[in-house]
């Protein structure tokens, strides 16, 4: 009997980790693409929030969840394009623009949500994505029900990780992204359009941030609340650094953070919490700051990060 309990506990725990990791994996991969091309996108927190809102709204009004996902992705791409317009086309300072995009997108998300749904005592909810067990694979003990009995968006995140690595390391476009992030001058000489490549990378990043937002309001919470993102964008910024700007490591960092978060939730629920749960939530940020200091000896950040490119200036 206790063996059965233990197994359920483990399956539930593993499944929780996967679910917490999914939006972080999307967001982290999105930020990674942007940063590999040399553009820090601090708009991520606001972009996730606005996408979560538009996705929820589209799904709620149309009754079609995939239409909601599409709306969230398009929102992310649009806001990515806005950030790229300021930082890539106009060459404005990336960190200040990013904060501007976050303030603007969060404000717009709250404003439009209140306009569409009014002020209700109980926030409206939708019937979100249901788990989609994959035949055969979901029958594997422990791992099956935890990993292969999940939402469709979870499977998309699992596929997105190797796909992102393939795109970044094995395709001509990925090479261009890395070149414009490391040495835009050389990329330009080699005939790569720095402006176009950076635009594409930031927009692709925005699409992934949109998926992260979509997951929050359409699979995890099935409602939009003002704290629905609550710092997950900043976590993704940390995870990209912690994952050394690599898709595999970044996704691994997301999984590690999800493990700590799931553990924290479980300890809180079990009343074992002698350590305040906030201590766990702080960990990824502290780890990342320490990791940045340790890693600084061997520079792993894209060399052209934060540096605008103007062709005529040499």
């Amino acid at each position, binding site marked *: 009997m206790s063996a059965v309990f233990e197994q359920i506990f483990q399956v539930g725990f593993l499944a929780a980790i996967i679910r917490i990791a999914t939006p972080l994996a999307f967001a982290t991969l999105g930020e990674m693409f942007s940063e590999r091309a040399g553009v*820090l996108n*601090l708009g991520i927190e*606001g972009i996730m929030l606005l996408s979560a809102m538009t996705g929820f709204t589209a799904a709620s009004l149309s009754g079609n969840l995939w239409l909601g996902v599409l709306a969230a992705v398009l929102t992310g791409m649009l806001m990515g394009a806005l950030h790229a317009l*300021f930082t890539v086309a*106009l060459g*404005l*300072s990336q*960190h*200040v*623009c990013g*904060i*501007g*995009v*976050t*303030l*603007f*997108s*969060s*404000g*717009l998300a*709250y*404003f439009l949500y*209140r*306009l569409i749904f009014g002020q209700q005592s109980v926030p409206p909810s939708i019937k979100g994505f249901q788990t989609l067990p994959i035949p055969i694979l979901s029958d594997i003990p422990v791992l099956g029900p935890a990993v292969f009995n999940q939402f469709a968006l979870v499977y998309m995140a699992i596929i997105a990780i190797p796909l992102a690595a393939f795109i970044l390391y094995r395709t001509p476009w990925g090479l261009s992204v890395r070149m414009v992030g490391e040495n835009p001058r050389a990329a330009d000489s080699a005939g790569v359009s720095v402006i176009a490549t950076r635009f594409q990378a930031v927009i692709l990043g925005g699409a992934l941030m949109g998926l992260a937002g979509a997951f929050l309001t359409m699979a995890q919470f099935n409602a939009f609340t003002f704290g629905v993102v609550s*710092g997950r964008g*900043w*976590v993704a*910024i*940390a995870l990209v*650094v912690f994952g050394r700007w690599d898709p595999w490591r970044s996704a691994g960092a997301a999984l590690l953070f999800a493990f700590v978060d799931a553990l924290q939730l479980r300890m809180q629920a079990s009343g074992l919490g002698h350590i*305040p749960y*906030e*201590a766990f*939530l*702080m960990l990824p*940020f*502290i780890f*990342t*700051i320490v990791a*940045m*200091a340790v890693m*600084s000896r061997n520079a792993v*950040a894209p060399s052209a*990060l*934060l540096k605008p490119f*103007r062709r005529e*200036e040499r």
Partner: protein
Amino acid sequence: MFRLEARTSTPAWFNLALPIIAIGATLVICSGLIALAGAGVLEAYGVMLSASFGDSYAITETLVRAAPMIFTGLAVAVAFRAKFWNIGAEGQLLAGAVASCFVGAIPMPGALAILLMALAGAAAGAAVALVPATLRVKFKVDDVVSSLLLNSVIYYALMALIEGPWKDSFSGYPISPPIEDSANFPVLLEGTRLHLGVIAALITAPLIGFLIVRTTLGFRIRVTGESPEAARYGGINVERVLLSTALLSGALAGLAGVGEVGGVHFQVMSDISPGYGYSGIVVAMLARLNPLGVVPAAIFLAAVMTGAEAMSRATGVPAFLSDVIQGTALLAMLVALLFTAYRIRRVGAPA
């Protein structure tokens, strides 16, 4: 085709014109949202204006709102002048609030309590800001990301306090115990909330302006920001200047938290700052990093915030419009700033 061409000099009237143009553009852009909400644009802006400046009480309320943003605006302006990219004013504000709340809860004479609260808050903010600056100076760690991430660390530390040792054991609310009555900042105008901290903010701005323009430290900060190479060549210890700047910047942001605890809330709760640290970035950019410009810029944002609530009640336009205005104003100002360094030239057309 148009292209950007570098300017050799910037006309002086740009300093005043750019923020006004940026704010004008912001109000035009955001009028679309007011129309979308089905309200009259002029009516809505009219309500905002009268609710924030319409009578003396409204003006004091706007000033009370502006005070923390004057401090965070100064914090960001000073830091950015030295190109120390302090995105962490929010966390430094929270640290200042927590420290001053600790001190304010100790029974002691009022004047002493207020002085010690200010010192403790400034020291806490400075200590937090010192972390990203030290990491940058010693380990070449990017200050943008480290200062931003510290905001979350400080926020969770605050949450751990108010949900742990500080938690109200009677009501169970996650709020700190109130500070001593004697530590409450004196109200300067009967029947309003205009407290000592507001005056302190209004006095601090010209003091920081003086520091930047007329003192050796200010000179070092400016040279370090404009050209670290030139600063080094001139015998300035750039690392030391960055650390001093961080201390000053963090202390200013910490004082924003002190004012909120001593003059407005008298305790610490999770939403003691509705993002005043981030608003400080908007304020500093609108002010073009000029400490004197920080005051009108902060008053503008404060007016938008107080005005938006009244507008929401009168016209039904969601008060979140103020958040959109804030973000739009920052982006509009950044674009406007482009014209100080560049001009638009038509290229490809026959000369």
